[in-house]
């Protein structure tokens, strides 16, 4: 079986500047992401509060439920809101995320059209608080936030789920970007190892560079058949600038920002990640190392004196 597998030599990977797990963990995450700062990104509520302080755009927070007894007031919190999202503050992989797009009398409507009662929502929140959806089952908080209206620029590029854009930011410099498109195989989730499509995005134009599914190059979306080369992310400059600003906010040197495009509000930060994966290299058909090294070679003054916009310009000039 091993004979059939495709292998490559370490030298080839090195030549392409591919970064491996060990180097990422040892030379980047361990060195540039201080442990004490992790709560800033691991807790979505903390991220949101911080982003508001730094005037970075995030989906508006409608309310937080922390204790079971607060659940009774849910009706009041939701008063006048027809669409919203309930999600665990420390969830992962889309678990426990409940999107409500409309109301019909006493009912709340999910995107699928399924009708939920207020009681259903309360039970969902109760489960969230007791940790049903959170890592290791620890107690959690439930956030109620603005439901993003996705830009229809991505019509036909995604199956069911909502595409998001992952930008890896090193010391504030955006070094690589990738769009994640859900597929039938990924069950509508934008999760690469479950079979979502990863599309490398050009840092200058926001256009697709190359695409992969299951770690192999593809040309078309497997479900919709749309040519992935045609994908262009609108409001790209604004999006990449927003990503770049996450550095000042988190002070984390090696960061992954998950950004979505709202029809009206433009790019919003959905989630930050202190351990961004390596698949972005496959999607871009390029290695991260040369880019990371280029940033490392900048002098301290150059880095500190540069504004987010300068960093974006630097990236757009060098990382093509």
């Amino acid at each position: 079986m091993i004979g059939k597998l495709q292998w490559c030599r370490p030298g080839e990977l090195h030549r392409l500047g591919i970064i491996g797990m060990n180097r990422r963990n040892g030379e980047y995450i361990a060195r540039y992401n201080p442990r004490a700062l992790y709560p800033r990104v691991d807790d979505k509520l903390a991220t949101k509060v911080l982003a508001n302080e730094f005037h970075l755009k995030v989906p508006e927070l409608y309310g937080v439920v922390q204790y079971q007894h607060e659940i009774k007031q849910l009706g009041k919190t939701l008063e006048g809101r027809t669409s919203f999202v309930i999600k665990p503050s420390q969830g992962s992989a889309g678990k426990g995320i409940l999107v409500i797009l409309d109301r019909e009398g006493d009912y709340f409507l999910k995107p699928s059209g399924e009708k939920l009662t207020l009681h259903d929502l309360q039970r969902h929140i109760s489960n969230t608080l007791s940790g049903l959806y959170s890592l290791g089952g620890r107690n959690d908080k439930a956030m109620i936030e603005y439901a993003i209206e996705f830009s229809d620029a991505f019509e036909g590029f995604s199956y069911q789920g909502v595409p998001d854009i992952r930008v890896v930011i090193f010391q504030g410099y955006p070094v690589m970007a990738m769009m994640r498109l859900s597929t039938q195989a990924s069950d509508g989730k934008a999760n690469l190892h479950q079979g979502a499509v990863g599309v490398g995005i050009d840092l200058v134009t926001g256009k697709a560079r190359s695409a992969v599914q299951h770690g192999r190059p593809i040309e078309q979306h497997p479900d919709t058949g749309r040519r992935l080369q045609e994908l262009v992310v609108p409001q790209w400059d604004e999006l990449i600038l927003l990503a770049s600003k996450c550095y000042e906010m988190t002070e984390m040197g090696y960061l992954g920002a998950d950004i979505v495009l709202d029809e009206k509000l433009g790019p919003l930060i959905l989630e930050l990640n202190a351990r961004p994966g390596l698949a972005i290299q496959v999607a871009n058909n390029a290695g991260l190392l040369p880019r990371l090294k280029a940033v490392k070679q900048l002098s301290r003054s150059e880095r500190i004196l540069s504004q987010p916009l300068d960093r974006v310009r630097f990236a757009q000039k060098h990382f093509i």
Partner: protein
Amino acid sequence: MNAKVQLRILIVILMAVGLGTALIKHYQIGYPLIPKQQIPIWTIEAKVNFFATGDPVKVKFAVPGEQNNFGILEEAGSSHDYGFIPAGDLSGSDGFYRYVTWSISEATGLQELYYRVDIYQKKNFELLDLESPPLNPSKKYEEDPLAIAAEELVKSAQYHSADAVTYVGQVIQLLNNEADQNVQTLLSATRTDLDRTRLLNTLIIKGGYESHLIRALLLAETSTKQALQPMVVLIEDGQRYLFNWGTPQPQQQMNLLAWQRGGPSLIEIEGGRNATVEFSVIKQALPASFVLEQASRQREKKLMDFSLTSLSVEQQDSYRLLLTIPFGALIVVILRNIIGIRTTGTFMPILLAMAFLRTNLGPGILLFIIVVSAGLTVRAYLTKLDLLLVPRISAVVVVVIGIMVSFGIFGSKFDLDILRSVTLFPTIILAWTVERLSVLWEEDGPKEVGIQTLGSLTVAILAYLAMGNPILRYQVFIFPELILVALAIILALGQYSGYRLSELLRFAPLVKTNQEDGK
């Protein structure tokens, strides 16, 4: 940079201390590095028979101490009803006066007492490189007519000899000539071999040389009803020569155990008479590791001896397991960071390996597969019932324990060894494994569960092979400082920032498309 240098220095220090201590112990104390050789062991049983006269009985019986060519593993005295006082120190200054004591308030008729000692052969074949016991020549040869006879014999032997060995040879030859008047006089005062050997010893001392008496046991392959052989040890220039009554040449020293050295009698009995002592010897070969462990438990702790052999057998057992864990950890580091195998948790594979050590590999893997698939099936069902995470996983654990216990019961009912190996420890570990895998299923889905289960199992099997390896177990037990070496290697691997083997597979398509682009 600084941190890197510090780490390198630390690694070198750990390596040096770990390997250095082990080598010192190897060369100074003589622990072999690899437990390949077998060491001969003799189990010697001394049976003491005597008639008790109905009074209180007290028996003092001389027993061997630690010697240059033989070491003592274990000793015990048995004989029901008698109180038993074991011998003292193995090596102390009373080494040649070691004795055990049996006592009882009243006894009549034939009595049987047993003393058993296990001794092992040391590397050294030279006999008795020990402090000499007092010379004590027999007093009776100080009086006439024995004194005169002895003196003449000594003079004649001195005249015909050049050194100690030739002197003793001459004395023995002269004594062999039973027609001689002096010899007849001297022998008239002796009844037993022991008496005659005492005579020989006295004549050697009178000749101005140093010698003493021993009672030796010949350690043949296996024999019964042996008796102790009285012999004379002649010491000249630090060299020792063994002489038998009647043989003018020094004797072979190999396989001779000096049961008792010096003058006092072998056995002293109060309240009994007609004592006889019989020895039986059984020879076995045991792995050196085992022997050495046992041996140093007996020995007094030496300063350099950091090994754990001085602990009780039970403690030794758990330390033996504990000490192999660092090497399990090393394997985990190699497989995760160098090979790139994904496992559930860092230490779960080690715990699994420990469970396998209890159940043995085959049954362990079988159990693992059965229990994990049963546990995950139950989990799937409980998920449908919409239970909260913690109660759900607790329920899974309860079910798993139920499964394991029923295995145990079936196992003992139908005599299935496989199932009987289920004990508390593996049960807990397997239950915990199922818990981890259930959580993983919740968080990352079935595919990831499959990958990580296989990964964990692979790592666990390799860790099992390492941790169960008899050579490694021996080495860490005798040289516990080797865990510093494991630590050093782990720290060194912690610096490895190269690609994992799995990444050569993962990123291969990238290399391929880049090559195509290049064309």
